Protein backbone atom coordinates (compact mmCIF):
# COMPACT_ATOMS: atom_id res chain seq x y z
CA UNK A 1 0.00 0.00 0.00
CA UNK A 2 1.43 3.41 -0.96
CA UNK A 3 0.30 4.96 2.32
CA UNK A 4 2.31 2.32 4.25
CA UNK A 5 5.42 3.26 2.25
CA UNK A 6 4.79 6.93 3.06
CA UNK A 7 4.27 6.07 6.74
CA UNK A 8 7.62 4.22 6.85
CA UNK A 9 9.44 7.07 5.11
CA UNK A 10 7.99 9.77 7.38
CA UNK A 11 8.83 7.72 10.49
CA UNK A 12 12.35 6.75 9.45
CA UNK A 13 13.75 9.93 7.89
CA UNK A 14 11.30 12.60 9.12
CA UNK A 15 11.76 14.69 5.93
CA UNK A 16 10.71 18.33 5.61
CA UNK A 17 9.32 17.54 2.16
CA UNK A 18 8.50 14.30 0.39
CA UNK A 19 7.41 13.74 -3.19
CA UNK A 20 5.18 10.73 -3.90
CA UNK A 21 3.91 9.39 -7.23
CA UNK A 22 0.75 7.26 -7.21
CA UNK A 23 -1.72 6.14 -9.87
CA UNK A 24 -4.83 5.64 -7.80
CA UNK A 25 -7.33 8.20 -6.50
CA UNK A 26 -7.91 6.27 -3.26
CA UNK A 27 -4.15 6.25 -2.58
CA UNK A 28 -4.17 10.06 -2.97
CA UNK A 29 -6.98 10.32 -0.41
CA UNK A 30 -5.31 7.88 2.00
CA UNK A 31 -1.92 9.61 1.84
CA UNK A 32 -3.47 13.08 2.14
CA UNK A 33 -5.41 12.02 5.24
CA UNK A 34 -2.40 10.30 6.83
CA UNK A 35 0.01 13.14 6.02
CA UNK A 36 -2.43 15.65 7.55
CA UNK A 37 -2.52 13.61 10.76
CA UNK A 38 1.31 13.75 10.86
CA UNK A 39 1.50 17.53 10.47
CA UNK A 40 2.21 17.69 6.73
CA UNK A 41 0.35 19.71 4.12
CA UNK A 42 -0.17 18.07 0.74
CA UNK A 43 -0.13 19.58 -2.76
CA UNK A 44 -1.58 17.28 -5.45
CA UNK A 45 -0.90 17.56 -9.19
CA UNK A 46 -2.48 15.37 -11.85
CA UNK A 47 -0.04 14.13 -14.49
CA UNK A 48 -2.04 12.17 -17.05
CA UNK A 49 -3.17 8.99 -15.30
CA UNK A 50 -0.85 9.56 -12.32
CA UNK A 51 -0.75 11.93 -9.36
CA UNK A 52 2.23 13.72 -7.83
CA UNK A 53 1.84 14.53 -4.15
CA UNK A 54 4.21 16.95 -2.46
CA UNK A 55 4.18 16.64 1.32
CA UNK A 56 5.55 19.59 3.27
CA UNK A 57 6.08 19.88 7.02
CA UNK A 58 3.73 22.55 8.38
Amino acid at each position, binding site marked *: *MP*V*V*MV*QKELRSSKPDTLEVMV*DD*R*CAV*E*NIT*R*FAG*SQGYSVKTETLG*TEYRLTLSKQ
Partner: protein
Amino acid sequence: MKRENLLVLLAGICTGLAALALTMLGNPANMGFCIACFERDIAGAVGLHSAAKVQYVRPEIIGLVLGSAVTALIAGEWKARSGSSPALRFVLGAFAMIGALAFLGCPLRMVIRLGGGDLNAVVGLIGFALGIFIGTRFVRRGFTLQRSYPARRTDGAVLPIIMLGLLVLFVAAPAIFRLSTEGPGSKHAPFFLALAIALVIGALAQRSRLCMVGGLRDTMMFGDAHLLWGFAAIFVTVLVGNLILHKFSLGFGAQPVAHSSHLWNLLGMTLCGWACVLLGGCPLRQLILAGEGNGDCAVTVLGMIVGAALAHNFALAGNPDSVNEAGELVVGGISMAGKIAVLLGLAVVLAVSVFNSRLGAKKNG
Protein backbone atom coordinates in the same frame (compact mmCIF):
# COMPACT_ATOMS: atom_id res chain seq x y z
CA MET B 1 -17.28 16.89 10.96
CA LYS B 2 -15.16 16.56 7.79
CA ARG B 3 -16.95 16.08 4.45
CA GLU B 4 -15.44 12.62 3.86
CA ASN B 5 -16.56 11.46 7.31
CA LEU B 6 -20.05 12.80 6.62
CA LEU B 7 -20.16 10.98 3.29
CA VAL B 8 -19.18 7.63 4.78
CA LEU B 9 -21.63 8.21 7.66
CA LEU B 10 -24.41 8.92 5.15
CA ALA B 11 -23.47 5.82 3.13
CA GLY B 12 -23.56 3.72 6.30
CA ILE B 13 -26.97 5.06 7.41
CA CYS B 14 -28.42 4.50 3.92
CA THR B 15 -26.96 0.97 3.77
CA GLY B 16 -28.50 0.20 7.16
CA LEU B 17 -31.88 1.60 6.08
CA ALA B 18 -31.65 -0.33 2.80
CA ALA B 19 -30.92 -3.55 4.70
CA LEU B 20 -33.96 -3.00 6.92
CA ALA B 21 -36.16 -2.15 3.94
CA LEU B 22 -35.01 -5.15 1.89
CA THR B 23 -35.74 -7.47 4.81
CA MET B 24 -39.22 -5.96 5.26
CA LEU B 25 -39.78 -6.36 1.51
CA GLY B 26 -38.98 -10.06 1.56
CA ASN B 27 -35.25 -10.78 1.97
CA PRO B 28 -34.37 -13.32 4.72
CA ALA B 29 -34.09 -12.03 8.29
CA ASN B 30 -30.85 -10.19 9.12
CA MET B 31 -29.98 -10.56 5.40
CA GLY B 32 -31.06 -7.29 3.84
CA PHE B 33 -27.61 -7.28 2.31
CA CYS B 34 -25.08 -10.10 2.26
CA ILE B 35 -22.51 -10.09 -0.50
CA ALA B 36 -21.37 -13.65 0.23
CA CYS B 37 -24.91 -15.08 0.44
CA PHE B 38 -26.09 -13.23 -2.66
CA GLU B 39 -23.07 -14.23 -4.78
CA ARG B 40 -23.71 -17.79 -3.56
CA ASP B 41 -27.34 -17.48 -4.70
CA ILE B 42 -26.22 -16.25 -8.13
CA ALA B 43 -23.77 -19.17 -8.36
CA GLY B 44 -26.71 -21.48 -7.71
CA ALA B 45 -29.01 -19.69 -10.15
CA VAL B 46 -26.56 -20.25 -13.02
CA GLY B 47 -26.04 -23.88 -12.05
CA LEU B 48 -22.56 -23.70 -10.53
CA HIS B 49 -23.94 -25.52 -7.49
CA SER B 50 -27.12 -27.48 -6.92
CA ALA B 51 -28.10 -26.56 -3.36
CA ALA B 52 -31.79 -26.03 -4.14
CA LYS B 53 -32.47 -23.67 -1.23
CA VAL B 54 -29.92 -21.02 -2.23
CA GLN B 55 -30.49 -20.19 -5.89
CA TYR B 56 -31.65 -16.77 -7.09
CA VAL B 57 -30.42 -13.97 -9.35
CA ARG B 58 -29.92 -11.39 -6.62
CA PRO B 59 -30.48 -7.90 -8.04
CA GLU B 60 -28.58 -6.41 -5.09
CA ILE B 61 -25.26 -7.64 -6.55
CA ILE B 62 -26.16 -6.38 -10.04
CA GLY B 63 -27.26 -3.02 -8.63
CA LEU B 64 -24.14 -2.49 -6.51
CA VAL B 65 -21.81 -3.08 -9.48
CA LEU B 66 -23.84 -1.01 -11.95
CA GLY B 67 -24.47 1.77 -9.40
CA SER B 68 -20.73 2.01 -8.82
CA ALA B 69 -19.97 1.92 -12.56
CA VAL B 70 -22.39 4.72 -13.46
CA THR B 71 -21.29 6.90 -10.53
CA ALA B 72 -17.60 6.38 -11.31
CA LEU B 73 -18.25 7.30 -14.95
CA ILE B 74 -20.08 10.50 -13.96
CA ALA B 75 -17.37 11.40 -11.42
CA GLY B 76 -14.58 10.76 -13.93
CA GLU B 77 -13.19 7.98 -11.71
CA TRP B 78 -13.92 5.03 -14.03
CA LYS B 79 -10.48 3.64 -14.88
CA ALA B 80 -9.74 0.29 -16.52
CA ARG B 81 -6.90 -1.33 -14.58
CA SER B 82 -5.62 -4.87 -14.10
CA GLY B 83 -2.50 -7.00 -13.77
CA SER B 84 -2.11 -7.14 -9.98
CA SER B 85 -1.73 -10.90 -9.33
CA PRO B 86 -5.14 -11.86 -10.78
CA ALA B 87 -4.67 -15.62 -10.24
CA LEU B 88 -3.75 -15.14 -6.57
CA ARG B 89 -6.71 -12.79 -6.15
CA PHE B 90 -8.99 -15.48 -7.58
CA VAL B 91 -7.74 -17.98 -4.98
CA LEU B 92 -7.90 -15.48 -2.10
CA GLY B 93 -11.42 -14.49 -3.18
CA ALA B 94 -12.51 -18.13 -3.17
CA PHE B 95 -11.12 -18.73 0.33
CA ALA B 96 -12.55 -15.44 1.66
CA MET B 97 -15.92 -16.75 0.47
CA ILE B 98 -15.41 -20.19 2.05
CA GLY B 99 -14.57 -18.45 5.36
CA ALA B 100 -17.60 -16.15 5.09
CA LEU B 101 -19.96 -19.04 4.29
CA ALA B 102 -18.62 -21.04 7.25
CA PHE B 103 -19.86 -18.10 9.36
CA LEU B 104 -22.94 -17.68 7.14
CA GLY B 105 -22.35 -14.13 6.05
CA CYS B 106 -19.95 -11.57 4.66
CA PRO B 107 -18.58 -8.77 6.87
CA LEU B 108 -21.54 -6.56 5.90
CA ARG B 109 -24.04 -9.21 7.02
CA MET B 110 -21.97 -9.66 10.19
CA VAL B 111 -22.66 -5.98 11.04
CA ILE B 112 -26.35 -6.42 10.11
CA ARG B 113 -26.55 -9.55 12.30
CA LEU B 114 -24.97 -7.56 15.17
CA GLY B 115 -27.75 -5.00 14.78
CA GLY B 116 -30.33 -7.79 14.99
CA GLY B 117 -28.98 -8.98 18.34
CA ASP B 118 -27.25 -12.09 16.98
CA LEU B 119 -24.40 -12.60 19.46
CA ASN B 120 -22.74 -15.15 17.14
CA ALA B 121 -21.82 -12.08 15.09
CA VAL B 122 -19.82 -10.79 18.10
CA VAL B 123 -17.77 -13.99 17.89
CA GLY B 124 -17.52 -13.45 14.12
CA LEU B 125 -16.40 -9.84 14.70
CA ILE B 126 -13.63 -10.99 17.07
CA GLY B 127 -12.41 -13.44 14.41
CA PHE B 128 -12.74 -10.80 11.69
CA ALA B 129 -10.69 -8.27 13.71
CA LEU B 130 -8.10 -10.97 14.44
CA GLY B 131 -7.82 -11.79 10.72
CA ILE B 132 -7.44 -8.12 9.86
CA PHE B 133 -4.81 -7.68 12.59
CA ILE B 134 -2.76 -10.62 11.27
CA GLY B 135 -3.12 -9.33 7.70
CA THR B 136 -1.93 -5.84 8.65
CA ARG B 137 1.22 -7.34 10.22
CA PHE B 138 2.15 -8.69 6.78
CA VAL B 139 1.18 -5.46 5.01
CA ARG B 140 3.59 -3.66 7.36
CA ARG B 141 6.28 -6.20 6.42
CA GLY B 142 5.85 -5.27 2.78
CA PHE B 143 3.11 -7.62 1.63
CA THR B 144 2.06 -6.82 -1.92
CA LEU B 145 0.07 -8.33 -4.76
CA GLN B 146 2.13 -6.06 -7.04
CA ARG B 147 0.84 -2.97 -8.80
CA SER B 148 -1.91 -2.87 -11.39
CA TYR B 149 -1.54 -1.28 -14.81
CA PRO B 150 -3.79 0.71 -17.12
CA ALA B 151 -5.81 -1.77 -19.19
CA ARG B 152 -8.11 -1.67 -22.17
CA ARG B 153 -11.62 -0.47 -21.41
CA THR B 154 -12.99 -3.87 -22.42
CA ASP B 155 -10.96 -5.45 -19.60
CA GLY B 156 -12.28 -3.00 -17.01
CA ALA B 157 -15.84 -3.41 -18.23
CA VAL B 158 -16.01 -7.19 -17.77
CA LEU B 159 -17.94 -7.37 -14.49
CA PRO B 160 -20.36 -4.49 -15.23
CA ILE B 161 -21.14 -6.16 -18.59
CA ILE B 162 -21.60 -9.58 -16.96
CA MET B 163 -24.01 -7.97 -14.48
CA LEU B 164 -25.85 -6.15 -17.25
CA GLY B 165 -26.10 -9.43 -19.17
CA LEU B 166 -27.41 -11.22 -16.09
CA LEU B 167 -30.03 -8.48 -15.64
CA VAL B 168 -31.19 -8.65 -19.26
CA LEU B 169 -31.29 -12.45 -19.27
CA PHE B 170 -33.20 -12.65 -16.00
CA VAL B 171 -35.80 -10.13 -17.18
CA ALA B 172 -36.10 -11.67 -20.66
CA ALA B 173 -35.91 -15.35 -19.84
CA PRO B 174 -36.12 -16.10 -16.10
CA ALA B 175 -36.95 -19.75 -16.84
CA ILE B 176 -33.35 -20.48 -17.86
CA PHE B 177 -32.19 -19.91 -14.27
CA ARG B 178 -32.50 -22.25 -11.30
CA LEU B 179 -34.62 -20.47 -8.72
CA SER B 180 -35.30 -21.69 -5.17
CA THR B 181 -38.89 -22.45 -4.23
CA GLU B 182 -38.06 -22.81 -0.51
CA GLY B 183 -35.29 -21.71 1.84
CA PRO B 184 -33.32 -18.42 1.87
CA GLY B 185 -33.10 -18.29 -1.94
CA SER B 186 -36.88 -18.15 -2.23
CA LYS B 187 -37.11 -15.16 0.11
CA HIS B 188 -36.49 -11.97 -1.74
CA ALA B 189 -37.67 -8.41 -2.14
CA PRO B 190 -39.39 -7.45 -5.43
CA PHE B 191 -36.71 -7.60 -8.12
CA PHE B 192 -36.78 -4.06 -9.52
CA LEU B 193 -37.23 -2.44 -6.12
CA ALA B 194 -34.18 -4.30 -4.78
CA LEU B 195 -32.27 -3.35 -7.93
CA ALA B 196 -33.13 0.33 -7.49
CA ILE B 197 -32.11 0.30 -3.81
CA ALA B 198 -28.82 -1.43 -4.64
CA LEU B 199 -28.07 1.08 -7.43
CA VAL B 200 -28.29 3.89 -4.86
CA ILE B 201 -26.15 2.02 -2.32
CA GLY B 202 -23.62 1.18 -5.05
CA ALA B 203 -23.38 4.87 -5.91
CA LEU B 204 -22.96 5.90 -2.26
CA ALA B 205 -20.40 3.16 -1.60
CA GLN B 206 -18.41 4.30 -4.64
CA ARG B 207 -18.33 7.92 -3.53
CA SER B 208 -17.63 7.19 0.16
CA ARG B 209 -15.21 4.20 -0.30
CA LEU B 210 -17.34 2.34 2.27
CA CYS B 211 -15.52 -0.83 3.32
CA MET B 212 -16.04 -3.16 6.28
CA VAL B 213 -12.36 -4.20 6.26
CA GLY B 214 -10.93 -0.74 5.64
CA GLY B 215 -12.30 0.76 8.86
CA LEU B 216 -10.58 -1.71 11.17
CA ARG B 217 -7.45 -1.97 8.99
CA ASP B 218 -6.87 1.79 8.81
CA THR B 219 -7.55 2.22 12.52
CA MET B 220 -5.00 -0.51 13.36
CA MET B 221 -2.38 0.74 10.91
CA PHE B 222 -2.70 4.53 10.93
CA GLY B 223 -5.10 5.43 13.71
CA ASP B 224 -7.43 6.58 10.91
CA ALA B 225 -10.97 5.70 11.95
CA HIS B 226 -12.92 7.54 9.25
CA LEU B 227 -14.15 4.36 7.48
CA LEU B 228 -15.30 3.04 10.86
CA TRP B 229 -18.02 5.71 10.75
CA GLY B 230 -19.69 3.67 8.00
CA PHE B 231 -19.32 0.42 9.94
CA ALA B 232 -20.78 2.04 13.07
CA ALA B 233 -23.56 3.81 11.15
CA ILE B 234 -24.79 0.54 9.61
CA PHE B 235 -24.79 -1.13 13.03
CA VAL B 236 -26.63 1.69 14.83
CA THR B 237 -29.18 2.15 12.03
CA VAL B 238 -30.00 -1.56 11.86
CA LEU B 239 -30.07 -1.83 15.67
CA VAL B 240 -32.47 1.11 16.09
CA GLY B 241 -34.59 -0.08 13.16
CA ASN B 242 -34.89 -3.59 14.56
CA LEU B 243 -35.79 -2.23 18.01
CA ILE B 244 -38.53 -0.04 16.51
CA LEU B 245 -39.82 -2.90 14.35
CA HIS B 246 -39.67 -5.38 17.28
CA LYS B 247 -37.27 -7.57 15.26
CA PHE B 248 -34.40 -7.35 17.75
CA SER B 249 -33.65 -10.70 19.37
CA LEU B 250 -30.60 -10.93 21.63
CA GLY B 251 -28.89 -14.29 21.96
CA PHE B 252 -26.78 -17.03 20.45
CA GLY B 253 -29.21 -19.85 19.73
CA ALA B 254 -31.52 -20.24 16.70
CA GLN B 255 -30.76 -16.82 15.22
CA PRO B 256 -31.96 -16.36 11.61
CA VAL B 257 -29.71 -18.15 9.08
CA ALA B 258 -26.91 -18.46 11.67
CA HIS B 259 -25.25 -21.13 13.77
CA SER B 260 -23.75 -21.02 17.25
CA SER B 261 -20.68 -23.16 16.66
CA HIS B 262 -18.39 -20.52 18.14
CA LEU B 263 -14.95 -21.78 17.11
CA TRP B 264 -15.95 -22.02 13.44
CA ASN B 265 -17.74 -18.70 13.44
CA LEU B 266 -14.50 -17.22 14.77
CA LEU B 267 -12.13 -19.04 12.41
CA GLY B 268 -14.38 -18.54 9.37
CA MET B 269 -14.32 -14.78 9.84
CA THR B 270 -10.59 -14.82 10.69
CA LEU B 271 -10.03 -16.38 7.27
CA CYS B 272 -12.37 -13.90 5.59
CA GLY B 273 -10.84 -10.84 7.32
CA TRP B 274 -7.25 -11.91 6.66
CA ALA B 275 -7.88 -12.71 2.98
CA CYS B 276 -9.74 -9.43 2.53
CA VAL B 277 -6.88 -7.36 3.97
CA LEU B 278 -4.57 -8.99 1.41
CA LEU B 279 -7.15 -8.23 -1.29
CA GLY B 280 -7.41 -4.59 -0.16
CA GLY B 281 -11.07 -4.57 0.79
CA CYS B 282 -14.19 -6.43 1.88
CA PRO B 283 -16.48 -8.31 -0.54
CA LEU B 284 -18.68 -5.20 -0.93
CA ARG B 285 -15.63 -3.09 -1.79
CA GLN B 286 -14.50 -5.67 -4.37
CA LEU B 287 -17.86 -5.27 -6.17
CA ILE B 288 -17.61 -1.47 -6.06
CA LEU B 289 -14.02 -1.44 -7.38
CA ALA B 290 -14.91 -3.94 -10.12
CA GLY B 291 -17.68 -1.52 -11.10
CA GLU B 292 -15.08 1.27 -11.34
CA GLY B 293 -13.14 -0.69 -13.96
CA ASN B 294 -10.77 -2.68 -11.76
CA GLY B 295 -10.27 -5.99 -13.60
CA ASP B 296 -8.38 -7.51 -10.66
CA CYS B 297 -11.38 -7.00 -8.40
CA ALA B 298 -13.60 -8.49 -11.11
CA VAL B 299 -11.41 -11.61 -10.98
CA THR B 300 -11.72 -11.57 -7.17
CA VAL B 301 -15.52 -11.46 -7.43
CA LEU B 302 -15.46 -14.36 -9.91
CA GLY B 303 -13.20 -16.23 -7.46
CA MET B 304 -15.73 -15.56 -4.70
CA ILE B 305 -18.57 -16.91 -6.86
CA VAL B 306 -16.55 -20.06 -7.62
CA GLY B 307 -15.65 -20.33 -3.91
CA ALA B 308 -19.37 -20.19 -3.09
CA ALA B 309 -20.08 -22.95 -5.60
CA LEU B 310 -17.31 -25.12 -4.10
CA ALA B 311 -18.64 -24.40 -0.60
CA HIS B 312 -22.01 -25.89 -1.53
CA ASN B 313 -20.83 -28.64 -3.89
CA PHE B 314 -18.56 -30.04 -1.15
CA ALA B 315 -20.84 -29.14 1.79
CA LEU B 316 -18.32 -26.72 3.31
CA ALA B 317 -20.78 -23.97 4.24
CA GLY B 318 -22.31 -23.58 7.69
CA ASN B 319 -25.64 -25.16 8.58
CA PRO B 320 -27.98 -22.90 10.56
CA ASP B 321 -29.21 -23.75 14.06
CA SER B 322 -32.72 -25.15 14.12
CA VAL B 323 -35.39 -26.11 16.61
CA ASN B 324 -36.59 -29.75 16.50
CA GLU B 325 -40.11 -31.10 16.96
CA ALA B 326 -39.61 -31.30 20.74
CA GLY B 327 -38.79 -27.60 20.76
CA GLU B 328 -35.11 -28.26 21.49
CA LEU B 329 -32.31 -26.24 19.95
CA VAL B 330 -30.24 -28.21 17.43
CA VAL B 331 -26.91 -26.43 17.09
CA GLY B 332 -25.75 -26.15 13.50
CA GLY B 333 -22.18 -25.56 12.41
CA ILE B 334 -19.95 -26.83 9.68
CA SER B 335 -19.06 -30.32 8.47
CA MET B 336 -15.64 -31.95 8.88
CA ALA B 337 -14.98 -31.08 5.24
CA GLY B 338 -15.89 -27.47 6.02
CA LYS B 339 -13.52 -27.39 8.99
CA ILE B 340 -10.70 -28.79 6.85
CA ALA B 341 -11.47 -26.20 4.13
CA VAL B 342 -11.29 -23.32 6.63
CA LEU B 343 -7.97 -24.61 8.04
CA LEU B 344 -6.64 -25.15 4.51
CA GLY B 345 -7.74 -21.60 3.68
CA LEU B 346 -5.85 -20.21 6.68
CA ALA B 347 -2.74 -22.16 5.59
CA VAL B 348 -3.03 -20.84 2.01
CA VAL B 349 -3.55 -17.26 3.18
CA LEU B 350 -0.53 -17.61 5.51
CA ALA B 351 1.61 -18.95 2.66
CA VAL B 352 0.56 -16.11 0.32
CA SER B 353 1.20 -13.59 3.12
CA VAL B 354 4.70 -14.93 3.80
CA PHE B 355 5.84 -15.37 0.19
CA ASN B 356 4.46 -12.05 -1.02
CA SER B 357 5.87 -10.19 1.97
CA ARG B 358 9.36 -11.45 1.09
CA LEU B 359 8.74 -10.33 -2.46
CA GLY B 360 7.72 -6.88 -1.22
CA ALA B 361 10.71 -6.63 1.13
CA LYS B 362 13.13 -7.56 -1.68
CA LYS B 363 11.52 -5.14 -4.09
CA ASN B 364 11.62 -2.31 -1.57
CA GLY B 365 15.27 -3.07 -0.88
